């Protein structure tokens, strides 16, 4: 059991982070806190992706000449999987964009209603 938890600690951390973010998005009333929650939520997913690319004892996926001779078969287990990391570069861009849009909308709301508390805004809208 301990092994199960400790051995896969990276996944546990991602789940915990994700739940924290999820709670903030749903439960918090303040819009900035929601945005922060959203960011935590997305970062957790990045962690998840990063950890699925990892292998124990593997190194960066760069084929340097120092590591072997030309013509020698490449040991895939010696390198971590680069694809999830690359995917996350794209995902980070998407997330930054989302964050930007969310913050921009937050500013719009603040300028209009002079508050960032959800219940006060909803009162003002009605």
């Amino acid at each position, binding site marked *: 059991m301990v092994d199960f938890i400790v051995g896969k600690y990276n996944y546990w951390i991602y789940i915990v982070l994700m739940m924290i973010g*999820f709670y903030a*998005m749903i439960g918090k009333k303040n*819009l900035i806190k*929601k945005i922060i929650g*959203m960011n935590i*939520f*997305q970062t957790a*997913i990045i962690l*998840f*992706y990063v950890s*699925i690319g990892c292998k124990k004892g593997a190194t960066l996926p760069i084929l340097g000449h120092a590591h072997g001779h030309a013509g020698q078969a490449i040991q895939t287990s010696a390198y971590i999987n680069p*694809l*999830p990391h690359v*995917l996350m570069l*794209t*995902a980070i861009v*998407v997330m930054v*964009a*989302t964050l930007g*849009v*969310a913050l*921009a*909308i*937050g500013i*719009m*709301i603040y300028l*209009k209603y002079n508050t960032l508390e*959800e219940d006060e*805004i*909803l009162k003002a*809208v009605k």
Partner: protein
Amino acid sequence: MIEQAPVLIVVIPLIFAFITPLIGWWRKELCYPWIILSLTLSTFCSVITLLTVINTGVIHYHLGGWLPPWGIEYAVDYLNAFVLVIVSFTSLTVAVYSKKSVELELPEKTIYFYTVFLLQATGFFGIIVTGDMFNLYVFLEIASLAGYALIAVGEEGAPMASFRYVIMGTIGASFYLLGVGYLYMTTGSLNMADLARLLPDLYGSKVVLVAFTFLIVGVATKMALFPLHGWLPDAYEKAPSSVSALLAPLMTKVSAYVMIRIMFTVFKPYFSIEMLPVTTILSWIAAAAILYGAVMALAQTDLKRMLVYVLLSEVGYLVLGIGLANKNGLTGTILHIMNDACMMVALFMIVGAIVYRCGNREISQFRNLHRRMPFTMAAFVIVGLSVVGIPPTCGFFSKWYLILGAVDTSQWVLAGVLVLSSLLNAILFFRVIEYAYIEPRGGHDNGGESLAVVREEAPLTMLIPIISVTAGIVLLGLLSGRIVSTVIQFAIPACF
């Protein structure tokens, strides 16, 4: 040139979108013809793509020449070629329509509006055309981000509605991304065709089950399926008219397409139907969505808000067909993707036209509207009849296939729900028609024509798209047999 068509559909609006602000700086009024040009080209490419698919079969387009599963592949078969044509035509129509309403509602932001509008279209095209799970996520987010921005510039309360949409949309997209991650963990592939080949051996795996669940929930959030619909009514009601006209018909349809893709292409139908009772669950949720949407719509006094709830109910139809998971049900869903796109785009354009002329959307204020805007209201009647499902309009035929699908699987309750919802829709639309057309009189008043109302029809750039879509609704209804036999029957997974 022709073999590049699948990628051109996406690339043209993308590049045009980046040039739009430049053009706007130079000549503000050129933005409008510019996006029309762009979407016309995309529409043209999508029609070519559909014809190529019909003539030669599935198109595989490898971006940058990289072979799948390493490179990104655009795979176009009957299903997405068909949806592409629908989406490109709809967005072109809305683009033509948007001119006047944008000038009225967003006078200072026209340049940026058109830029984001094109990005929105790019997102839709990308979602449909791609054959790669992660690429789909990126386009889904492009479409959503553009949508957040477009909704936020709407009327009073729109920023808050948009903010809620951002939160819910991000949750949905993130769930989708998680699902893709789990699939990648087990198979090491992101290509849909490749996944379809690799997955059957792993159907017992819990990771695959979790991935499937995340994918479906994520997509259901994006398409606002009943319990996950909370963001939709406010967002689409408060958005500018032409934005509602673009988003309401397309976002839901594109998500329905993604759902079909995931359930029946990436996963084999027997997984979605037998190994997990997903289709059964979905069909009951869909039934609830249909009734919920229709009942909530009954309670509205604002036409646009009523339509938003009708839209929720239409999402139910789409999912119900998927949930029935038989030939007729899926035919109904795919046909309904087309029909409902037409009906919703027409309805939201009509509301926009009414707002443009009268400045309000309260149904009770519609007296004499048929004198003021005779063509718009005539279009409303026809589209309304189509939503109710009166033949020969196209709405009837999707209902026909859906009910047939429900009867084929002996799902009497679901068939009953479909019938009941038609009646609820009838109440909804005939109520509006009654307000717009009947001028109540006291007692026996036979005195000629009643008070003169100035005819004030919507401007031509609005009226022409409305009329042409309305004519399309009748024509597509009559042609539906042909559409089913030439396209849709091949778009359904072979095992049905």
